[in-house]
């Protein structure tokens, strides 16, 4: 087993799946000769040719719209949108067509495809390169939304996404693209969509996070060890459909919760998670639930990015607050 970072793990997943399944094609801006601006598709064009690893014109809606057409015909396209901020022109295609075609045609036409998007802040990128649009996507019927938090998770989740019968938007936290290195199994293994991961068991408080925030929460847990606070950490992995059972089971045990996400606070998934806990486990709660999130502002440029991003300090403060009841 090799120790890989997330970029390498995703590259491996793509390579193995393209070997295994001739229907899989990769398309996007700079994914071919360049191997992607983050090198996620590095070497794929050389290996599989320009017909299966396609450098497209600069046209985001065009990339996902044609990917849908390909999927209708039985290919398994994996479209790359170069950065989160450039996903917005695709929302028309995603919302009006990709997420609906199975339902509209009563299952006669389907479009299993994956849209991969490097997402989130924390790498001092230019404007429009650090967005967290997951709540918009989770609010859209008919698509699944997956966000990995480690290299080996990324590989298993991506393979499951490619093989899924429905469209999946795969948001890759670019901040941890190269920050974590771990053993990644070779060969095909899948991690089921819609199932959360129990990152760490604990008795006192449940902290729910996904993507790059899992690492922030783990760092916060380290800091809280001295306070004898035993934190349970849940990595949602799939934010749509969400693993509600995993959240509720944990809340019934701990009675306290903090939700951490990088996306803006208002109408963020934190609100949804709290509403779900309210519906299903209200009587288990010992304290109001806290949210540690980004703010309702446009993502700041790099000099002020650190103000925006949730960090272990803010997570620690939130955990202490819920523990104070």
């Amino acid at each position, binding site marked *: 087993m090799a120790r890989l970072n997330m970029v390498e793990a995703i590259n491996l997943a793509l390579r193995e799946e393209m070997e295994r399944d001739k229907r899989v094609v990769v398309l996007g801006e700079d994914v071919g000769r360049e191997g992607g601006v983050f090198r996620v598709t590095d070497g794929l064009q050389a290996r599989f040719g320009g017909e299966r690893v396609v450098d497209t*014109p600069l046209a985001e809606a065009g990339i996902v*719209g044609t990917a849908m*057409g*390909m999927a209708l015909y039985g290919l398994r396209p994996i479209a790359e949108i170069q950065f989160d901020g450039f996903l917005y022109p695709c929302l*028309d*295609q995603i919302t009006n067509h990709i997420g609906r075609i199975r339902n509209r045609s*009563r299952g006669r036409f389907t479009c299993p495809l994956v849209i991969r998007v490097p997402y989130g802040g924390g790498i001092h990128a230019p404007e429009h390169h650090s967005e967290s649009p997951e709540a918009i996507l989770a609010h859209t019927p008919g698509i*699944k939304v997956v966000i990995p938090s480690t290299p080996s998770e990324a590989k298993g989740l991506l393979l499951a996404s490619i093989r899924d*019968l429905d469209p999946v938007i795969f948001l890759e936290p670019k901040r941890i693209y190269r920050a974590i290195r771990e053993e990644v199994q070779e060969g095909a293994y899948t991690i089921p969509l819609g199932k959360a991961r129990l990152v760490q068991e604990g008795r006192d408080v449940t902290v729910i996070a996904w993507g790059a925030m899992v690492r922030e929460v783990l760092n916060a847990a380290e800091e809280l060890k001295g306070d004898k606070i035993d934190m349970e950490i849940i990595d949602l992995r799939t934010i749509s459909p969400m693993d509600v059972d995993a959240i509720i089971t944990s809340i019934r045990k701990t009675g306290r919760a903090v939700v951490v996400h990088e996306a803006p606070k208002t109408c963020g998934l934190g609100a949804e998670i709290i509403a779900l806990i309210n519906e299903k486990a209200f009587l288990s709660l010992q304290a109001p639930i806290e949210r540690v999130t980004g703010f309702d502002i446009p993502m700041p440029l790099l000099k002020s990015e650190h103000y925006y991003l949730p960090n272990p300090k803010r997570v620690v403060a939130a955990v202490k607050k819920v523990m104070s009841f």
Partner: protein
Amino acid sequence: MGLFEDYHPLKGKMFQMLKPDGTLYSEMGAPLNDQETLQLYQKMVFIRLADQKALMLQRQGRMGTYAPVWGQEVCQVGSAYALQRGDWVFPAFRELAASLMMGIPLKTVYLYWMGNEEGSRAPEGINVMPVSIPVGTHPLHAVGTAWAAKIRGDKIVTIAYFGDGATSKGDFHEAMNLAGVFKTPSIFFCQNNQFAISVPRKIQTASETIAQKSVAYGVDGIQVDGNDLFAVYTATKEAVDKARSGGGSTLIEGVTYRFGPHTTADDPTKYRTDEEMEPWKPLDPLVRLRLYLKERGLWSDDVEKRLTEEAQKEIDQVVKEAEAVPVPEVEDIFKYVFAEMTPQLKEQMEYLKATL
């Protein structure tokens, strides 16, 4: 010289074969034999009556909003006739004629406009996509499907139907551009019916013609008389054959006129006068074909009466069948969202059932 060179969009010539008086422009003759022509005329009689029936059903509250095809029958019948059974059609929302031509049952079309999703389920083997209401968004799908077929080495062709308004959209540009770059076997059929709801063609684009937009994308383009069955069929057949043999995409602009409202929710008297419509009336695609067939000894008042009666009878029967289809079950609105229903959807469905 081929058709697309002879009628290169920058030459400013519209391709025509059948004059409004029903005679042919050239000695070359018609591209379709008498039997085929009469058969297509019969289809168009059926389509026009089925279209009028839908308008009437809407007015009587028996159908939801409907977008009539009235006046554009030839654009769709002539182009769809050039396709083969395995080809893929990506309609906008005014494509009753093209859908029926490809084998979609009228009952299915009626069910859709009556508000039942079953009306978007094409029978197996008939590759007609559900209507696409967000204007101009679906040519991208036609390009993607054509591209996939090309990658797989299948000799199929796709066609997207849209109106003049759609050519103002960004997705139209992206679709044309991608089709040009990747030489996809996809046909863009623009039915220039002169209006996008109320906004006239000249406000959509400063281009002299829509066909000439193809030039910038490196795609063949041609402007045809959209009310001329022979011209529409010939141009589309040429584009289809070219696409099937690896020659790439074509933009066809069929110049036509929307005789009806945009949809039943629209009042065209707000934006066009009877005088404006007057010059188009003699150009009615059915009138022209009737004159042609009469000259060939294939049409008479008796023939018309027979075709009308037969069509009317069939349409009435279809209306009866469509109206007899029960309201969908509660499960139906949940169970097709994903391949497998998510726990969330199951819970929401159970809740709804319990509250009905």
